[in-house]
């Protein structure tokens, strides 16, 4: 469902040409849980941005659900992000002026859902992360782990094909981090693919596949046959 072939990223300035990512290919199937590891500055974020349609790539082709995204307009890409991808950020990126309900509802507003549909999706997503009773609270009133749960609910509400998680536990202590990890695994178990960038090798070990990026070179280091229950 996510097929990247010979993707490369080159940053050009007036005088310098930087190869941020060497050409690589990667296929992710429905239900995969892929961890992306590597030291800072290795190109992890660039990879994530390309996978999430946040940034353009210089070479290669990228098919998302059999659709070539290379020549899509900004509006088409926005739409694709909205409908197919759920984002989870390291620093949560909740909007402080909005309460939890409104935060989770935010991406749904860029679609043509009815108010009733939006409401049932928001409540379902918040229920899934265990925060349905705190809809009217504001982000500042929550702990970091709870905030990240809200962000996960926001990612889930639009029923995306896969989740992109950028260091989802990077700002959390280990207790909370464990909670978030098990939540992500639950979500993966119910069929949503997850692409997670992390620097924590223990967490990475919990994924089906591990992709390592080092100095812009991407290699796959672990592949576990999914045990079908």
């Amino acid at each position: 469902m996510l097929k990247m072939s010979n993707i490369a990223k080159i940053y050009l300035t007036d005088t310098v040409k930087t190869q941020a990512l060497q050409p690589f290919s990667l296929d992710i199937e429905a239900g995969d849980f892929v961890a992306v590891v590597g030291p800072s500055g290795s190109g992890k974020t660039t990879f994530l941005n390309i996978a999430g349609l946040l940034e353009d790539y210089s070479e290669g082709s990228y098919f998302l659900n059999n659709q070539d995204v290379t020549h899509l307009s900004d509006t088409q890409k926005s739409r694709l992000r909205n409908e197919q991808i759920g984002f989870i950020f390291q620093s949560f990126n909740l909007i402080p002026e909005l309460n939890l309900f409104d935060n989770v509802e935010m991406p749904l507003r860029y679609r043509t859902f009815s108010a009733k549909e939006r409401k049932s999706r928001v409540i379902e997503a918040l229920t899934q992360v265990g925060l349905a009773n705190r809809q009217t609270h504001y982000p500042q009133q929550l702990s970091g782990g709870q905030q990240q749960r809200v962000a996960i609910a926001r990612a889930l509400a639009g029923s995306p094909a896969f989740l992109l998680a950028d260091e989802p536990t990077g700002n959390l202590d280990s207790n909370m981090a464990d909670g978030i990890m098990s939540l992500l695994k639950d979500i993966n178990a119910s069929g949503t693919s997850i692409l997670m960038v992390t620097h924590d090798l223990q967490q990475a070990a919990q994924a089906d596949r591990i992709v390592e990026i080092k100095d812009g070179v991407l290699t796959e280091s672990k592949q576990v046959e999914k045990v079908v229950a």
Partner: protein
Amino acid sequence: MLLYYFKLAMLSIRKTPLLSFLMIATIAIGIAATMITYTVNYMMTQDPVPGKSDRLFTVHLSSWDPNVGYRMKDGKEDIPIFMTYQDATNLYTDQRAHKQTIISFHKAMVRSAAQPRGQATMTYLRPTTHEFFSMLNVPFLYGSPWDASDDSQGSQIVVLSKKKNEQLFQGENSLGREVVIGGLIYRVVGVLDEWLPLPRFYTERSDSYSEPRGLFVPFQSSINNDWLSGTDGSVYCWGGADLIDLNALKASECVWLFYWVELASAELRDDYLAYINRYAQEQKALGRFQREQMNRVMNVAEFIEYNEVVNKDGRIAVWLAMAFLIACLLNTMSLMMTKFHGKGAEVGLRRAVGASKVDIARQFFCETVIIGLAGGAIGLVLALLGLYVTSEVYSHLHAGLMEMNLSLMLLTIGSSVLASTVFGLYPIYKACQIQPSSQLKSL
């Protein structure tokens, strides 16, 4: 420590140049607008004879037509602000005030005796009496006023304004030199120094903000010469007067002369008014003054108010400008909010390393003071520029109205600093409330 805050403030201003520029510019524009209008208004409403204005009075008599009132003002009958020749000379002869003066008007062709006839120019004269100068604190550069005997004889002598002396005698000490006024020789006995009473309260409203006339001659000499000009002052008549010459005017009930008195103290006002009323009763017995008697004396401030000398447009403009300043300050305040909010991380860090709320407040206070100072300085320049433009636009008003004195300049800077700090209080308060933890966590 203050120096450190100052340095931080300068750094911060330089770091966000556009934001700082917007803040300073808005304050400057608001302050400039307010100070321009305020300066004009302040200059217009100054006391024209400081220390004396409560002892100088103009006298108005009910000498008008028994059948029809003089005019209506604010729904009430009003009496003339001018006096008849008979009444002015009667009161003047009585000499019941500490000082008194008759103020008349005339215009004639004037040149110095040395100039050829062709160089004579039409000039507005001020026939008056000798105490005019001491009553209004008129400063002399050369010579002195004429005396009472010159008034009674109507001597052909003249006092020149400084400007007129420059035109006629190139500014030399012209005492004893001769001026030809309407074909008659007048000898110079005095030259005035700079003299610009604003408002020029002792005459008609339309002349309030123009320069005083350039030649002063004894009133009696204008009478002796049969000088009559109906076109450079006002003559109001009733009862079908036939104004073909001065004798007709003198004998008529037409009003045309201003009459001012100086009393030894403001408390003598009632006594003097009582005297005026007794005079009116005497005249009534003689068959004049048949209307209801509304005689009055008005001091300088009262007459300025009565004459509506101060333009109400000017006062409205001050209010408009002040509202404008508030709009500007609200704008600056929201810019400050944005600015200090943007520095949340810095505040959090400083708080974390041990700065107290007061320290933070001092730092930002320093910044608002600098912004206020800069706004005030630029505002001052803008205001001076604006006043220059204003004096071009309002060319009919004396340019002296559009000049700032030192205290107004200081007021400009001071009010800018005050305004920016007052409107900075809330943003500073908000900035101090930032918790050290909250900002660091999100980094």
